[in-house]
């Protein structure tokens, strides 16, 4: 029988102080019996002598200091894992929310996980074809990568993430694939969009969803992504599945973290976010990857809505420092009606170099990618210049680059919601567009490829 305490002395915001406690451990799970019917959960944030500082996941409404009973469970927050999780929808704390039965866990796992030994990692190098040119061609995703989508309110990050989940495949393999979806503080409609899309395509059968909606307890969000990642690790490293983890929206997660930090009166870092935000985010993002000798993998796509589209906002900035690149959505492209509105210049996939080229995609991939980037950048510059001085001020070359930039956005970046392009289609499309430029300007491409591919396109 666990000892029960009725010694709550303070409740403020998401925090609670319990006194005269014994044998408490930092990080352990706490149960608070608010009334006969209701049990809430918390976690020990600080163990100071006989005083415990507890973070409440589900808020403090209705909690009476004298009447509520507190039990310390002697373990961290755990989730029961099993293959039965597939096809199920859970709340942000791992309880079923689809009306189905409790799952019978194979075993229980602490949601915090231990860091992966960098010596045990395998460098991600398997090309994932998402069917989206701006990603496959220019910001290639590989298995085991963490590649966030930096979006803004009102931009179509959800359809893009759903499209990636739907179309992602590794060429030439038929392997076990699954999707783990962690939602933090998103609206019902957004969550429903994903659930319906997964249902429509049948993906739900191989998906596990953890959903904390906007009106669910905010502090619960701190554990939601860790629930999702623990489930993903089980599927990937124990059941040999290739897991795509979609986490949305990290901005809400970081705000919950800030709320706790503020309540603890910690010295804030930038914009009121705690100084340990980087470490905290890293402890989630770094759980993506491949491990030597294990067949499965975790590929992660976290979604962030940038407050005021500000790329230097701490959440976005720190994420960019941890993740292996970013897909940046641009409002300007969205207004032009381009879907997906991926702003390719500031977007980046750091792991692309090992995932492309001969034997993975095609030998000319790296060179054409660099060339498309450089040409698009120059075209955008030319257009800017033309906006100030007028079209006439442009040199002959610059005019062609400016035309190239428009075509590139309309034909290469722009594609349909259901359009699934193969990587060959994407690469050929790139060559098609490069024919708009003088050959002598294709400095980033090896001559042999120019001879081999450009003539093909020209003759076709």
């Amino acid at each position, binding site marked *: 029988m666990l000892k029960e305490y009725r010694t709550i002395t303070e409740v403020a915001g998401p925090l609670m102080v319990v006194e005269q406690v014994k*044998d408490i*451990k*930092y990080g*352990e799970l706490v149960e608070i019996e608010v009334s006969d019917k209701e049990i809430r959960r918390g976690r020990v944030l*600080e*163990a100071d*002598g006989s005083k415990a500082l507890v973070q409440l996941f589900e808020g403090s409404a209705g909690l009476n200091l004298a009447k509520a009973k507190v039990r310390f469970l002697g373990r961290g927050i755990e989730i029961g894992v099993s293959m039965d999780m597939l096809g199920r929808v859970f709340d942000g704390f791992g309880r079923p929310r689809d009306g189905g039965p409790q799952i019978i866990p194979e075993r229980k796992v602490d949601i*915090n*996980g*231990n*860091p*992966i030994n*960098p*010596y*045990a*990692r*395998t*460098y*991600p190098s398997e090309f994932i074809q998402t069917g989206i040119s701006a990603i496959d061609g220019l910001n290639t995703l590989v298995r*085991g990568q963490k590649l966030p989508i930096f979006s803004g309110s009102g931009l179509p990050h959800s359809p893009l993430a759903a499209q990636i989940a739907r179309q992602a495949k590794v060429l030439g393999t038929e392997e076990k694939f699954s999707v783990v979806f962690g939602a933090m503080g998103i609206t019902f409609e957004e969550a429903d969009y994903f659930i319906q899309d997964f249902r429509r395509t049948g993906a739900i059968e191989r998906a596990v969803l953890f959903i904390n909606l906007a009106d669910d307890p905010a502090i619960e969000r701190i554990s939601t992504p860790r629930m999702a990642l623990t489930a993903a690790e089980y599927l990937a490293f124990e059941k040999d599945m290739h897991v795509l983890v979609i986490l949305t929206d990290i901005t809400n997660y970081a705000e919950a973290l800030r709320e706790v930090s503020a309540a603890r009166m*910690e*010295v804030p*870092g*930038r914009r009121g976010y705690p*100084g*340990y935000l*980087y*470490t905290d985010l*890293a*402890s989630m993002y*770094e*759980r993506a*990857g491949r491990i*030597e000798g294990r067949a499965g993998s975790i590929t992660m796509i976290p979604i962030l809505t940038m407050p005021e589209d500000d*790329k*230097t*906002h*701490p959440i976005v*900035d*720190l994420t960019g*420092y*941890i993740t*292996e*690149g*970013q897909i940046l959505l641009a409002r300007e492209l969205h207004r032009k009606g381009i879907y997906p509105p991926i702003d390719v*210049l*500031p977007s*980046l996939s*750091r*792991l692309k170099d090992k995932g492309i080229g001969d034997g993975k995609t095609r030998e000319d991939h*790296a060179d054409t990618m*660099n060339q498309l*980037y*450089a040409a698009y*950048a*120059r075209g955008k510059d030319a257009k800017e210049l033309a906006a*100030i*001085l007028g079209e006439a*001020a442009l040199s002959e070359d610059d005019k062609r680059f400016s035309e190239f930039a428009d075509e590139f956005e309309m034909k290469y970046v722009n594609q349909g919601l259901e359009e699934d392009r193969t990587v060959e289609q994407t690469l050929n499309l790139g060559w098609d567009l490069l024919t708009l430029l003088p050959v002598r300007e294709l400095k980033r491409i*090896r001559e042999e490829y120019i001879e081999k591919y450009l003539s093909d396109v020209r003759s076709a």
Partner: protein
Amino acid sequence: MEEGRIIKVSGPLVVAEGMSSARMYDVVRVSDSRLIGEIIEMRGDKASIQVYEETAGLGPGEPVYTTGEALSVELAPGLIEAIYDGIQRPLDKIKDLIGDRIERGIELPGIDRERKWHFEPRVKPGDSVESGDIVGVVRETTVVEHRIMVPYGIKGTVQDIKEGEFTVSDQVVTINTSNGTEGITMLTRWPVRRGRPYAEKLSPYQPLVTGQRVLDMFFPVAKGGAACVPGPFGSGKTVVQHQLARWADSDIIVYVGCGERGNEMTEVLTDFPELTDPHTGEPLMKRTTLVANTSDMPVAAREASIYTGITIAEYFRDMGYNVALMADSTSRWAEALREISGRLEEMPGEEGYPAYLGSRIAEFYERAGRVKCLGTDGREGTLTAIGAVSPPGGDLSEPVSQATLRVAKVFWGLDSTLAARRHFPAINWLTSYSLYLERLEEQISEITAEDFGDLRKEAMQILQEEAELEEIVRLVGIDALSVKDRLSLETAKSIREDFLHQNAYHDVDTYTSLNKQRLMLKAILDFHHTALDAVESNIDFDAIMKLEVRDVIARMKYVPEDEKETLNSVSRQIKSAFQDLAQAVGGEEVA
């Protein structure tokens, strides 16, 4: 062993009482899982301890054991090719022991005690030796000769010395000192927070040749210098650091991955054994030590990792080697300092960082340098420190960047706009600087040719001019420029694209020797001069721009180093191209 009791646990910080016999910065073992921690504050008999492992599950009442020793690293053969965590636990052995993940309370020595090394004496009985003298050597890898030195504080005559296969803890030398005999093993220990002693500090004068054109040509760092690479995310800090670790002409590389991505360390681990060092022809791993404390590993060990790395680097410097240390990223280290400082409830300075941030950063970079080593042979060693900085939002006004700029002599400023147009390395040539430029000029000219400095100066002038001319173009358009100015713009573009831009993933382009660098820049400037003359004799500008020899210049970067003839012929080709052009024009006039 003294025993204290935990009274408080808050993240990586544990407070224990009953610690009156402990000293500041002593290592302690926390709880019965024996987590490693270090004392960072003492008040009465209460000690604040930063714990280098995850503290979940710890609680008040659990014991704390003192060890009476400061946080130290083990120094002996076996350091090269090793991969350590922030407190020198070997990650490869941890994997063998417990699997893919790092659990708590693992105790493993940094140096293998079982492995035998062939010890070869360099002194004989009767020789008098003092601290720093080399008593023998061990062939650690095909490129590194590990020199065993008399430990600090020992002086006397050699009584006995052995030769043969020994483990690091076997006694190999016996020395008669004024206080009796001292046995020396190949293994020594050194506290990480204290710089290793040397006889004298000297000014650096030799260039660290990196094979990276923008660095060697425009912003060189000296062997024994300190450089910093600040840049926003995605600007290529890590690629720059990796390139330096790969190609710098250093005898030893210590690479510290501090709070960065796990996959980046994996990349080094997979690439380095396969890549060949252009200077020795051996795999790069044969001269490399890795310290990896990735961002998901405990934050306190991140703080220690920088010191662990630099102490190992100093040890090799003391043997008389040129050592380069890369730390990626010092900002994560500073954040670890901030986190611990916050938990200690210290009064924060700027942006929550502790007030001592500046002095800690300065202390770190000051451990770099060219020194005369201890010992009677007067050998010299250098330690070059290159730190990446990750300023939030790319804003260099933040405390870590500012504190770093005050002490680092070389600033390689990465620029996100360059990165966005895939100009890599995205080092901004207008804002970056090297304070070693003049000092190194003589040495570099000796390696290449007299005109090296002049080429550099002229190229830089043209790049500066470009920035000014672009302003004008932006206001009034390209037509307002004179032909000469337009030529300058084209040359600047050529310098940017054909010289400064360098592809780290291209087999040939990834490394360029100083001589080839000079030839490349010379070709670009030769073209510029010849074109200037041609313009003055009224040859059509557009015709010059269409010359095919420009492609030859542009593709020089892809010509392998050993095709010297091809490289040397470019200047001739330029000359004849212009002669042909002049003739063609002349011919037309006659016709």
